[in-house]
């Protein structure tokens, strides 16, 4: 593999010079390997004679130079100049069905033309070329053109040269109305206002166009426009995608992307921050937010999912994503086998995956994000933390005054105790078991602590020696622990739910007999979770103590119906069941005591058992830990510190409230890297594969020197290094597609052998070099693209041009294509005046049909549309639910973002018509638009109509259009005049306040006209 990789690179470098220097002057009939031959071989031969070593037949490979020109038992695979002596040509052209390649059963057939192309190529000398996309980047010379007057920048030279070769001429420059509309959608995703259009049309400045471009590049909507595209690539969404598809907060990442494009963050920096913003030496909140990129993939909370399997799914998803976003490669193919068409090996796949092995995450379960505070919030947090630490210190510090008080308290307590009988006897269990596999271990202080597994449901069995001759009750203390969540009492969320308690008496030699419990008492029960529940025989009810909110030690006692007579061999078997719907609410730490007193109670002032024990030990005989326990108990109860404690509680509360206001995002948090193995056939259960270390694909990069483990930081830096020609090629091609409807290489997702050799390879390379050498300046690149004469052409062209170049690959005209789903929404809102142009923030929920989320579960949920301005935000901010994407976005081909996507496949369906006609947001937009028509459009129907058409399309209506729309207005006015209730009903759609002062019949009739305008093909198309 390694040799193969090197040969591609070195041969590539050699081929590159020749290729690039001569490409434009080459005779059209010369067969080119990259353009003409590799696609034939890749499509028809590589599956068996390509990169995948496992399925390679006859030891023949046609994807490398060595393979193609090899000698196979005395026969040349390709003999330059001699087709008849070349195995390849022999086998594809033989009449013998047994020898014919590709074999008929493969279903692949070479056309006579393809065979002829292969023959010609061999005849012409069989000149080989390295795969274009992997060749080192070099800036090609500008080609000569005849019409030297045409064009504004080097882009135009490349384009014009090809147009002239075909005997065409470029289309005329589009008119200014078209240009400003095109530019506004392309750079801001929004239509120009009519005023902007008129000003631009009337602007005598020859540089008006360039000024317009600069204004749009400086607009905050530019970042939104590019984010719209980037978010598809990186599969950004508001839900986690698998099964229950619950919400997770990642919108700060979306806002980071918008900011990055608006601030013109260099693309190399943008890249590194997303992959490794957490690892940067000077990492900031901003770069850590960027690192959310690594966590945008889908994740599951499904019960019964295997963490290991899903961690590997997430790893594979990341490899696919990096491959598609930066490398334009279908790396996913190499998860189970070496790539069939491209030089990616399985090992490459898993080495790429290993870069992300340090990303800390659980395989299954809900994900909690990291806070993204503003500067002010950070300052406030620091202030509160400072206050907290001072007060916490005060609670631990003995002042001289406290020292005196302590001595007094000790004395007084001892005196009080002397008068009392110790009621409860802490009892050490003889054995402990957990049905769910938790470890229950006795601690030095006599408590029992759980660790290890914390299963959804668990049942503890505690066997206690019952030596006392007279036992009347059992006490259970449930205790907090600093390492439990929320400092609580259990390892779930800090709260516990004890569903059932049973006690049995076990005498040696006989079966255990139940000890009937007369009643249960507790010092505290959470509302709705009384202690009595533990005796009701229902697993779904239980005793809880709000340990997630108000963590504190609590106790309960179970008073026996009749005293139990213990003996030295008897045991009490206590069963504590946790079987409610609240999973993992198992008791985390506890202690059991027994008593023989006649009327046992839980004295709230009673001392904890360990404190009692310490007090009863003479002070000079106390071990240090007893002293420490005693002192901290005193500090916790002494009234002298009440004020500090109150302030502490208030500060904690304030901090909690502040935290709740701070947004979170799933930043990358690095940790000990998991081991990454090659998984044979992608099978996660197979651990026989080789362990691999992070590295870029071997055919693209030298193995990193030394033993030090490579990190995501190095991956990011390599992606934008001079050594990797793919990133700039891929990105400029995609931007080209954004502004022309089709890429220079049409396949914007795949720059491998199955991709398309670019129609303008020199231009693609020129742009890639220009982009890289400009310091990865995205706005520079965009400006270059949109100020070219190529971009500024009309989308209308001579019929002959359209006939001969139906897919506009020559760019002898602009393209006409439908707006994206979000822009269709934004445009209608902008035209009507409803659009709220705020940038960023949590995602919003516009109207959605009732019941649309009915098929979601765990938990069931309903979509509650937002109120007020949030309803009219741009489509970019609409809540992106992966398994049930908003129906109007879905019908206009928005992708679900379960996987990344470099282009949306456009379609043209009746559901789109229904959406524009009937979705309340479009009806409401039409109504509000109609209000403006009535208020701002003049007095006469014709004037109003002209105004409305200008608002929508940026141009005056044609007479025929006026006729159709005036007819509609009049017929609708008549209809509504006869049915005023209907007029009122139409005006009631949507939450925007209705206009009481406008005549309802007029308003309804104009709403119908406005709906018509919003539904026009021209309205939702950019040309």
């Amino acid at each position, binding site marked *: 593999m390694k040799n193969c990789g090197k040969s591609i690179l070195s041969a590539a470098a050699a081929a590159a010079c020749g290729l690039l220097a001569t490409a434009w002057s080459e005779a059209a009939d010369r067969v080119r390997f990259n353009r003409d031959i590799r696609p034939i071989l890749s499509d028809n031969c590589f599956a068996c004679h390509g990169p995948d070593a496992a399925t390679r037949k006859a030891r023949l490979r046609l994807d490398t130079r060595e393979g193609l020109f090899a000698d196979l038992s005395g026969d040349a695979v390709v003999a330059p100049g001699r087709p008849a002596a070349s195995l390849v040509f022999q086998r594809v052209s033989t009449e013998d069905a047994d020898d014919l390649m590709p074999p008929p059963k493969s279903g692949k057939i070479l056309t006579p033309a393809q065979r002829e192309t292969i023959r010609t190529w061999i005849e012409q000398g069989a000149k080989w070329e390295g795969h274009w996309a992997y060749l080192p980047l070099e800036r090609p010379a500008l080609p000569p053109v005849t019409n030297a007057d045409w064009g504004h920048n080097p882009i135009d030279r490349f384009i014009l040269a090809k147009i002239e070769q075909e005997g065409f001429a470029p289309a005329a420059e589009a008119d200014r109305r078209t240009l400003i509309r095109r530019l506004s959608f392309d750079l801001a995703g929004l239509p120009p206002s009519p005023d902007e259009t008129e000003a631009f049309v009337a602007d005598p400045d020859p540089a008006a166009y360039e000024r317009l471009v600069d204004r749009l590049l400086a607009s905050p909507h530019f970042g939104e426009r590019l984010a719209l595209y980037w978010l598809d690539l990186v599969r950004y969404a508001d839900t986690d995608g698998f099964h229950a598809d619950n919400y997770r907060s990642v919108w700060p990442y979306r806002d980071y992307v918008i900011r990055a494009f608006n601030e013109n963050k260099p693309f190399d920096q943008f890249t590194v921050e997303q992959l490794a913003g957490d690892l940067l030496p000077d990492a900031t909140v901003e770069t850590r937010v960027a690192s959310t990129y690594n966590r945008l993939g889908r994740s599951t909370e499904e019960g019964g999912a295997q963490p290991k399997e899903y961690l590997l799914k997430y790893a594979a998803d990341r490899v696919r994503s990096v491959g598609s976003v930066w490398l334009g490669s279908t790396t996913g193919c190499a998860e189970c086998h070496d790539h069939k068409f491209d030089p990616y090996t399985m090992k490459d796949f898993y080495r790429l995956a290993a870069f992300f092995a340090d990303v800390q995450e659980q395989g299954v379960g809900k994900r909690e994000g990291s806070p993204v505070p503003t500067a002010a919030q950070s300052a406030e947090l620091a202030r509160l933390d400072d206050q907290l630490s001072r007060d916490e210190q005060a609670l631990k510090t003995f002042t001289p005054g406290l020292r005196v008080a302590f001595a007094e308290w000790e004395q007084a307590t001892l005196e009080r105790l002397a008068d009392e009988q110790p009621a409860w006897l802490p009892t050490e269990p003889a054995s402990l078991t957990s049905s769910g596999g938790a470890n229950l271990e006795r601690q030095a202080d006599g408590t029992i602590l759980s660790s290890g597994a914390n299963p959804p449901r668990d049942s503890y069995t505690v066997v206690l020696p019952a030596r006392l001759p007279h036992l009347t009750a059992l006490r259970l203390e449930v205790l907090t622990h600093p390492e439990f969540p929320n400092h609580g009492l259990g390892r779930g969320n800090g709260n516990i739910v004890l569903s059932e308690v049973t006690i049995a008496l076990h005498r040696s030699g006989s079966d255990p007999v139940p000890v009937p419990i007369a009643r249960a008492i507790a010092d505290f029960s959470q509302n709705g979770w009384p202690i009595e529940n533990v005796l009701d025989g229902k697993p779904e009810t239980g005793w809880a103590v709000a340990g997630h909110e108000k963590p504190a030690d609590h106790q309960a006692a179970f008073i026996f119906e009749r005293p139990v007579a213990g003996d030295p061999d008897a045991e009490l078997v206590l069963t504590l069941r946790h079987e409610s719907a609240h999973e993992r609410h198992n008791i985390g730490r506890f202690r059991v005591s027994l008593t023989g007193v006649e009327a046992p109670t839980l004295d709230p002032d009673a001392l904890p058992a360990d404190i009692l024990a310490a007090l009863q030990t003479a002070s000079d005989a106390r071990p240090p830990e007893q002293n420490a326990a005693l002192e901290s108990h005193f500090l916790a109860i002494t009234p002298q510190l009440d004020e500090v404690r109150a302030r502490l509680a208030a500060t904690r509360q304030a901090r909690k409230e502040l935290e709740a206001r701070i947004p979170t995002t799933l930043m990358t948090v690095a940790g000990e890297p998991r081991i990454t193995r090659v998984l044979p056939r992608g099978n996660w259960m197979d651990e026989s594969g080789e362990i691999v270390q992070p590295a870029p694909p071997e055919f693209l990069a030298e193995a990193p020197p030394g033993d030090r483990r490579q990190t995501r930081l190095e991956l990011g830096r390599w992606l934008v290094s001079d050594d990797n020609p793919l990133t700039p090629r891929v990105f400029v091609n995609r931007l080209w597609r954004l502004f022309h409807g089709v890429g220079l290489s049409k396949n914007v997702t795949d720059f491998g052998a199955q991709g398309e050799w670019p129609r303008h390879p020199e231009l693609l390379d020129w742009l890639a070099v220009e982009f890289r050498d400009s310091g990865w300046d995205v706005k520079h690149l965009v400006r270059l693209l949109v100020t070219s004469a190529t971009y500024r052409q009309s989308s209308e062209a001579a019929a002959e041009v359209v006939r001969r170049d139906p897919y506009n690959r020559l760019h002898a005209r602009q393209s006409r294509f439908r707006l994206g789903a979000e822009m269709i929404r934004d445009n209608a809102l902008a035209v009507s005046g409803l659009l709220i142009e705020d940038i960023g923030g949590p995602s919003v929920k516009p109207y959605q049909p009732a*019941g649309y989320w009915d098929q979601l579960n765990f938990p069931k949920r309903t979509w509650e549309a937002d109120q007020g301005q949030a309803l009219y935000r741009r489509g970019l901010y609409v809540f992106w639910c992966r398994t049930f994407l908003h129906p109007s976005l879905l019908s206009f081909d928005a992708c679900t973002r379960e996987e990344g996507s470099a282009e949306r496949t456009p379609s043209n369906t009746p559901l789109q018509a229904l959406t524009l006609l009937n979705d309340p947001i479009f009806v409401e937009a039409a109504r509000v638009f109609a209000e403006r028509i009535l208020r701002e459009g003049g007095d006469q129907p014709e004037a109003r109509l002209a105004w409305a058409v200008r608002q929508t399309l940026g141009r005056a209506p044609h007479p025929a259009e006026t006729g159709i729309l005036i007819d*509609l207005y009049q017929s*609708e006015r008549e209809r509504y005049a006869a049915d005023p209730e209907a007029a009122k009903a139409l005006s009631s759609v949507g939450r925007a306040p209705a206009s009481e002062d406008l005549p309802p019949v007029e308003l309804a009739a104009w709403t119908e006209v406005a709906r018509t305008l919003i539904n026009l093909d021209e309205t939702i198309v950019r040309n």
Partner: protein
Amino acid sequence: MNSLELLQHELNRRAFLGRTARGLGGLALASLLDPRLLRGETPPATDGPWPGVARPLHFPPRAKRAIWLYMAGGPSHLETFDPKPRLAELHGQPMPKSFTEGQQVAQLQGQELKCFAPQFAFQRCGQSGQQISTQFPQLGRIADDICIVRSMHTDQINHDTAHTVMNTGSSIAGRPSMGSWLLYGLGSESEDLPGFVVLISSGGGQDQPVAQRQWHSGFLPSRFQGVHFRSTGEAVSYLANPPGVGDSGQRRVIDAVNRLNALQRDRIHDPEIATRISQYEMAFRMQTSVPELMDLSQEPDHILDLYGTRGADGSFAANCLLARRMAERGVRFIQLYHRGWDHHGGIKKGIEIVSSHVDRGCAALLTDLKQRGMLEDTLVIWGGEFGRTPMAQGDGRDHHIKGFSMWLAGAGIKPGMTYGATDELGYNAVENPVHVNDLHATALRLFGIDHLRLTYRFQGRDFRLTDIAGRVVGDILA
């Protein structure tokens, strides 16, 4: 395919010569042969119905349409179609390690694995003597019409990914579902209803979520997406006219839109405009045809009684009747989900409930199709994303992928037979195993399609419904 490509190219040129798409007799042909399709580009605009790319068909077709009774959650084969007396004998005893060692489990991870007896008796039904659980008496009556496959197996053990395999042939999101492939290959026979419709009902267990991905067109154009008809309320999103508009107002708006678009079409060279005009017409037709379809009040009493429903109430039975109405109206692929089959606990009670939801409807649908002569060209599939373990999970069963049951009927499927078998405990499919990809290959074959030849190029690869596998199960074809 490559010889076709030349022809296509020529046809395509002619298509582009015309100013309007409507005037071109050859356009439909041109588009179905468009080379862009083979290269995975957007199919060109046409203003007629999509004719499908699999023309001519690769084989004489037996099926014109399919109805998939999709039991979501993972129906237990051991309580439905796969009797296991030996499992009953071993009830409560440890599951032999020879079955389970090294195998995946879902929620039983880390737990002791014990045999769990089948919860219902089985009876031999019909002349064929097929064995069916007594919980499904109505299905028992049509036993001679169905072919039970007891040797299904799949790849993914969790609901979400297993559904994705069952519908798209792969666990990776983004692939087209079977209905989308059929529309792409064959087109729709209905001009005023979508060609791929999904209906969903629930109850009887912890209702599993079902993602839109299951009927998504993936990388195929979204015109091939399934459309989810909600069985109560508005069936299709945005189907109803806005308040105060009415049919006549809506018609006038659409007329105005189409006339204005026609002016634009005559000015500008873009076939998409003609398509948009026709899509507005279809949208308008749907506004009538969908409510008409969903209105069961025209069905006679004996039919309502047969299904056991009184109206379109969202029940599975009502959805079965709607499925028949869609089949009559030319809908190509109909999927009826019932979400109540995830029985980790209380499987006995759960199956009692869910069988009461689906048993009569399924049998009625088959009976009804048969009496109308439609069963012979309607493929009916019954089954879910996986089966359930022979091992106990409390008083339920966990997910199981190594062996489970489905049944098929109609359209060239051999009736009255049982195919394949699991081992004596119902764990592994040991005789004639049928993978999901095989099921898909077989279904496509019934539609006259060679599963290897219905492909779509995406990201440089020719994808198909059967991913990289699939084998037609010839033994179950009549």
